[in-house]
Structures are given as C-alpha cells and as structure tokens.
C-alpha cells in the first residue's frame, strides 16, 4: 500500500493485534451501551472504549511510528493522558445531571442527596455562579 509495507513482520503483527484489540474493546463498549438497561448502568459501558480501547490503539500507534522512524515516538502518551483525564470528568457531569433530574422529577430508586443542606429550602440563596446551560 504505502510506507506501511516497510514495517517488519513481527512489529506489524504486534500493531495489528493491538489495533484489533482496541477495535474489539470499543465495539464491546458500544454494544454495552446498547444492551444495558438503565441510564446509570449505561454510563459504565463507554468507559471501556475510552480507556482500554484507546490505550490499545495508542500503543499500536507508538509501536508503528517508533519502528518506522527508528526512534522512540511517545506523543501518544499525551493523548492518552488527556483522554483519561477528561472522560471521567465528562461522565461524572452526565451522571450528576441525570441524578439531579431524577430527583427533581421524584423518580423512584434514586438515592436522596447525601447531606440535605439548607439551600434546598431556599432555592434563591443557592443561585450558582456557574455557567447557565
């Protein structure tokens, strides 16, 4: 095809295996998203894709480019770090939002707020400074 053809066979095999593993893990994550029942359960599924799956693909990338350029290429570590840093934060926000909504709508099966703080009685006093959205 192109310069990938110059890759030595063992490296190529290793990289392919890693990419396939990553793809499989991502697929599993997506499948889980489809199969799991409640919203809170579903939150768990995509994490497989973003942690394990991406890690595998990034490893493969490191292997390939290290071999191709004959030097250590580890830019991908940065990508991994950022993904690992941001994904949980996002999911945390999503989960919190869902929880908030369920509590507002008094849906059953939702735990009550940990510390029933006084602001609940005075919603006006709790006006947040956070972004409106």
């Amino acid at each position, binding site marked *: 095809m192109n310069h990938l053809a110059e890759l030595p066979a063992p490296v190529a095999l290793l990289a392919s295996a890693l990419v396939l593993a990553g793809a499989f893990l991502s697929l599993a994550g997506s499948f889980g998203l489809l199969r799991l029942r409640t919203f809170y359960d579903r939150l768990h599924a995509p994490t497989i894709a973003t942690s394990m799956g991406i890690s595998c693909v990034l490893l493969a990338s490191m292997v390939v480019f290290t071999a191709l350029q004959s030097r250590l290429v580890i830019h991908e570590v940065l990508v991994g770090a950022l993904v690992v*840093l*941001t994904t949980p*934060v996002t999911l*945390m*926000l999503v989960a*919190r*939002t869902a929880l*908030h909504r369920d*509590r*507002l709508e008094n849906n059953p099966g939702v735990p009550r*707020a940990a510390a029933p*703080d006084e*602001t*609940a009685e005075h*919603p*006006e006093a*709790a*006006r*947040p*400074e*956070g*972004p*409106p*959205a």
Partner: protein
Amino acid sequence: MPDALYLSTAIGLPYLGALVTALLPANARRLESWLAGAVALLTLTMVWLCYYPTIAEGGVVRAEIAWVPQLGLNLVLRLDGLASVFAVMVAGIGLLVVLYARYYMSSDDPIPRFFAFLLAFMGSMMGLVLSGNLIQLVFFWELTSLFSFLLIGYWQHSAQARDGARMALTVTASGGLALLAGVLLLGHIVGSYDLDRVLASGDVIRAHPLYLPALVLVLLGALTKSAQFPFHFWLPHAMAAPTPVSAYLHSATLVKAGIFLMARLWPVMAGTDAWFWILGSAGMITLLLGAYVAIFQHDMKGLLAYSTISHLGLITVLLSLNSPLAMVAAIFHTMNHATFKASLFMAAGIIDHETGTRDIRRLSGLNATMPFTARLAMVAAAAMAGVPLLNGFISKEMFITETLSASTAPTLLHSLLPLGAALASIFAVAYSLRFIHGAFFGPTTGDMPHTPHEPPQWMRLPVEVLVFGCMVVGILPAATIGPFLDVAVRSVLGEATPYYSLAVWHGFNLPLVMSLIALAGGALLYRLLQRHLNAGIDGTPLLRRLDGRRLFDRVMVFLSWRFARTLERLLGTSRLQTQLRLMVCVTILAAVLALAPHDFGLGVLQLSPADPVIGLVWLAGSLCALAAAYQAKYHRLAALVLLGGAGLAVCITFVWFSAPDLAVTQLLVEVVTTVLLLLGLRWMPKRLELAGSGRLLSRLRRYRDFAIALGAGLGLTAISYATMTRVSPEGISRFFLERAYTEGGGTNVVNVILVDFRGFDTFGEITVLCIVALTVFALLRRFRPAPESIGVPDQQQGDVRNWMMVPAVTMKLLFPLIGVVAVYLLLRGHDLPGGGFAGGLMLAIAILLQYMAGGTRWVEDHLRVHPLRWMSAGLLLAGGTGLAAMAFGQPFLTSYFAYADLGWLGKLPVASALIFDIGVFALVFGATVLMLIAIAHQSVRSQRAAPTPPPAPQEER
C-alpha cells in the same frame, strides 16, 4: 499658468478661509471678520485678475484638472463674461456683507460658525458660477443648498429658523436632484458634460426627443432655486436668517443661482415654445403674486422677500421671451436687483438693529431720528420701484419695452405680457412706497423697543457703496456698467448680440408712458390701501387661502410619516424568520439566475469507487443533520447536540481527504459555536407543543419552509456535484503549490495563501469578524430576555454548586496546557497545520473552559481578558505589517522572510507573515472571547424582562 491658479484660488480660498475661521476661538470677532473680509477681497481680486486681460477681450479663461478623464469627469474651471459678472457679484457683495455682519452680529452669537458658513457658501457659489462641467455645477449647486440651509438655520435655538432652513433645503435640494437628472439627460444628448461642448450643441439638444424631459428637469432645478411659483414659498420663511445672510442669499447669490443656470443654458435650451410657456407662465405668476403679496407684508424683511420673489419672476419672464434683447435686460436687471436689494436688506437690518423691530406698523418717523440711513433706504427703494435716474428704472424700462415687442405674437400669454408688466410695476411702486412711508415718515413716537439712532459709520458703509452704485448706474449707465454688461451678454449670445442702447432718455415713447403711469398708479394704489394697511390686519386679501407652507407641511407629513410608515408596514418586517426566509429565497433566486444562462449539467468525470468507511461517517452525519432539523422546533438542545454530530462528520471528512488545516479549524469552530449557542439557549423562552401547533395553516407553513430548505440544500448539492465531477481548469493552485516555499517561506500552502498570497482577503475577513463581534456585543448589551426565562432554571437549583468541583479543578489545570497548544498551533502554522485562526480559537476555548469551571465572577476576579484590546491590537498588528511593507517600497502586505539565528537553539525560519498571523490570532481570540463574555455577563447582571410584545397578526407560530 496664472489663470488656472487664479481660478482655483477663487474657489479654494473661501473654503480654506471657512476652515480656518471655524477653528478660531469664539471671542476673536475682529480677527474673524478681518479674515473673512480679506478672503472675500482676495477672491474678488482673483476674479478681477482673470477678467482683465482675457475676458474683457471676449475670451474665456479655462483651467482643467484631470480627475476621472475616462468618464469625462474633470474639474473644469471656466470663466467667461456671464460667469465673471456673477463671480464679481458673489465676491463683491460678499465683501460688503462681511463688513456689515461684523457690526450686525451680536457678541452672543457664535461668530466663527457664522463666518465659516458664509465663506463656505461663498466658495460654493464661486464653484457654481465657475464650473466648466455640468456635473460639477450640480455638485456645487447642492453645496449652496446645503450651506444656505446652515446659514438660514444659524440661530438654531429658534424654531422658525430651523423650520425655514429645513424648508429651504428640502425645496432647493430636491430641485437640485431634478437638475442632476436633467443634466444627465443633457450629457446623454450631447455626449459630454463639458460646458463648452454643451454650449456648442444647441441645435442637437433642441432637436433631440429627450429635449422636453431634460428641459423640465433642468427648469425644475432653476425654478426651485429662484423661488418661482409654485416653489416660491420657501423664500419668505428663509427670512428667519440673520439679516446679513438674507442680504447675501436673496440679493446676489442663492436665488440668482437659478437665474444664472437659465442664462447659462439659454443659448442651447431656449428658443422653443416649451421654454416660453414654462418660464413665461411661472415667471408671470411669480411677478404678479410676489408684488401683490409684498404690499400687505408688515415685516420689512417679509416685504423685501416677496419683492425679491417678484423681481426674480420679472427676470424669469425676460429670459422666457426667447429674444436676445430680453436676455440683455435680464442680465442687466439681475445686476441692478443685486445692488438695490442687498442695500435694502442691509438697511432693514440696520433699522431692526437700532430700533429692535422690523414691523412697519410699529416703525415711524425714522427719517428724523436716523436721517442718513433713511435717505439711503429711500434711494434704494426708489430704485426698486423704478424711479427715473436710478438703475432700476433703466432695466425696468427695458423690461416693458420687451413685453411690448413680444405682445405682437398671437398667443394669449404674449398679449397679456404688457398688462402684467404694468400691473406689477404699479404693485412695485406701492410696496416701495409702503416701505418708505411706513418706516420713515409719520410721527417720531412709534412704539419701538429701542430709541432709534444712527448706526456705526462702518455698518452703513456697505449700504452707501451699493446705493452709490444704484445712482451712478442710473445716471450714467453706458459709461459705468456698459462694458461689463456687454462682455456678459456677448459671452451668452456671441454673434447674435443685438444692438441695444443703455441710456436714461430714449425719447418720449410708450415704455416711458407706462413707467410714469405705473408711478402714478402705484402712489394712488398705496393711498387707497392706506386704511386697510393701517388697520394692521395679517395676511393678504383675496389670497388668504393660498398658503404654500401649509401645503408643504402636509406633503412632508405625508411623505416622511404616513407614506413612509405605510411602506414600512407593507414591505418591512422585524421578524427574523421572515428575514431569514427572504434571504434564503433571494440566494436561491440569485444562484438560479446566475446559472440559468449557462449550460448547467453534471460533469462527466469518472467517479471513484465508493468507500464504505467514509460512507458510514457521512450516513451518520446526514442522519444527525436531518434529526437536528426535525428537532429544531421544540427541542433545541437536542438539535444542537445533533448538529455537533454533523459537524464532527464534516471534520472527519476533512481528515479523510487530507485537509488537516480544515479539520483542525472545523473542530475548533464546532466547539466554540456549540458552546456559545448552548450559553445562548438558556435565555430563549421555552417552546411548547400546544394543541394548536398542528393546525393545517401552521403545518402548511412548515411544509413551505421545508420545501425552501430542500431547494436550497439540493441546489447546493447539485452545484457541488457539478463542480466536483469536472476537471478543474488549470487554475492558480499549481502556482500556489510551486511558489509557497520559494516566495512565501512556508511549507503549509494553505497558511501561506491565507497570510501571504491572499493576505489582503484575510485582512478584510478579520475586519469583518471584528465588526461581527462588536455587533454581537452591542446587541447583547441591551438584551432583555423573555419574562419566562428570567428565573433560575431547574438545572441550576439544588446542590448544584458542589458538582462542579472535580470538573472545575480539571479545567483550571488544563488552562496552561491549552494555552501552550494554542501558541504552538500559531507558531507552527506557516509550515504545518495550524495557524493564527486555529490558535486564536484554541486560546478562546481555554478561556471558555475557565468561565464554565469557575463562573463569570471567579474568572474575572482572577484573570481579566480585555477582548477589545486584543481585537484592536490584532487589527493594528495585521494592518501595521501590511503598512510596514509599504514603508520598504513594496505593495501593501508584501511579506518578507528570513532565517533568524537563535544561537545554540539553531535557526528559525521567520516570515513577516508570522506577525500578520499573530494579528489574526489576537483578533480571533479577542472577538470570540468578546462574544463569550457578552453572553456570560447575562447571568451576572440583574435582568429585566422585555415588555410583552403586542399581539402579532397571526403570521408566525
């Protein structure tokens, strides 16, 4: 070439003087009047210098300054006999008026403004009479309208002055527009706007089918300016101006501009029946009406105003007669009228100044208290009445002679001419008598606000000069005014100049008899009207209902209020949906019209095989887009999220087809717009699906919108498809690819194009971005949310505050990292994907995250971004880079590149385009953050709801 210098000085000097005067301090009265006087005197000298050697021989002085020669538009200055007579009047009477105003204007009035306007008006008048090009003439014509507006409205605090000024401007400037149209027609007929060529093609003009429209339009301009019936009503209202202004505008300049134009074009446009009928009837009515109304005016200036109208009518009648002798009389009477009317206005001003009133009913016996002024005014008024041995008599006699000789023609108007002339002369004598008798005779104990006394000697000097002129010309016409009149007449009539005699005594003939009858009749009429006039009744008998002002007001109210409102109601909309719909429809129409004449078809290029992977991405993207459109009405948030999906699909497409620059930009733009829209959504009122939403009518509307959207989308698809299935012609892409490194110093061709090859385009684009950001900021500053979206939304109630803890820490920690990446993107942009635009957006996202993490107050306590400074710095930097290239003698925005030696760090390729890119960076960052801050601040300020809109007609859902 001294002539050119003299001529351009004659026009430029007054403007320069106006500029200097306007900058002088308000209390430098003496300096200002000296300056204005010196300017007027110098202008007069310039005209004289031109006049003496050439014009007196019958020649023409011409100076041409090329401007747009391709369009035949040059600044042509042309001085011939006629122009020189008018120029001398403008500058000479201007000089006297300046001297007079020096003593007339009160120390409370802002003097610099007065003299500045007066000089600027003088310059415009000079420009008008010295124009050698018709377009140029119209330009100066409108300038005189403008400056006369400013002069008439000089006492801004008085409503009368404001109204009068506005009326004068409306009438004369609209006439000017008609004149412009007429001149364009003339230019079309002749093929040139050059006055010499126009004057040489009289036969062509008169024979052309467009002659009549051109004539009507040109005369519309002339008649409005010269206050001819039915446009005469603005002139009396312009009397609210200070008296020096009236003396200047209504004797020698503004109203004479119309006469000048008619005389100027007389050789080429006159000589037809249309000319006679239009001008003859308008002039005759004006002559009689003005004179009749003047008798019943109680205000001295009002009397003079109507008499001015009447005299202008007289000149117009003379011009209409199509006879060379009448032309001579017209020019002669124009000069005479300028002298006696200016002196009369000044005398009225002196009386007003020294007694405190201009009301003839209150004035009395001034002959005893201010004898000198009274004598001067009496002589001038006698000249106005046409008393023998004064200049008015000679020209009036010529007028009567002309009407008598014209009356042999068979038409009714022709035969009525002598009768009208006699009647008008009787009226003229009557109102002149009224002026003299009412003010100067009678008991000395009138009820005047001040005790009258003689004015300062210098204030009287201009009047003395003018009255002296009246008498000298009246007694020795041929020896004094003769040569000048001859030059002026010859410049208009050329070979056709008739023999005429300027003399007081022509023997005992019919005109003399008529003059004597007029004198006696006028005195008799005044005697008969004595009782009516003494009763002090306002208004004109028989003509009380003829109120031009009321008619004018009605027309203005109709045009500017009712008509405009109706038009706006019928054609305008404030609804965004309608505007958007119209915009899309017009775009579709434009595209169709542009493509229709060409053979639009799909290209014949062999399509590459379908790729399932990118196909899937596109499928997902299209589904997202469709779903977004479907959800956009009631679920905006969902629609926005889906739009993000579509945007990501586009981004992946760019990556797939190896356009990393586009992909990066697309990604960043997607992020920024989504977040900004999300922030804005909070303030949108909720839209609920009600029972009525699905009615047939609103469904139909949605279908129509759907059809429009479908048309636009499919059209764009078709165009894209047709373009992409063709071999692109050998364009400039190869050029860019080849030259990017050798000439732009960068290997990222996209960036080199943006900041170097097409730097000017980019400069324009960032300027637009700047404007957009400022507009958003301005709109949001006064934003009022709908009442239902003022309260704190559900999402922000409860224990929200604690949730943001972890995300906030992460976002704050990421800030430096994102900043570094932004700078990295900027710096590498010239050689690798990135650039100022992407970098700026990236940095804006960093700030965006901080606002999300900490809230507006927290961010602004810790970090002040000054978006306006960023934007201005960016724009200045980008523009400055371009200008720097000019400093090195290169065209604007030429870039330069070299390798900077950084010592042990190695060599760094540096292009001046980088500085430009930094400007782009700063501007994009500033603009984005400005919009962000404008929205973010909505949540920290106290909101007031917008007033409930009035129930709209059921057009929109």
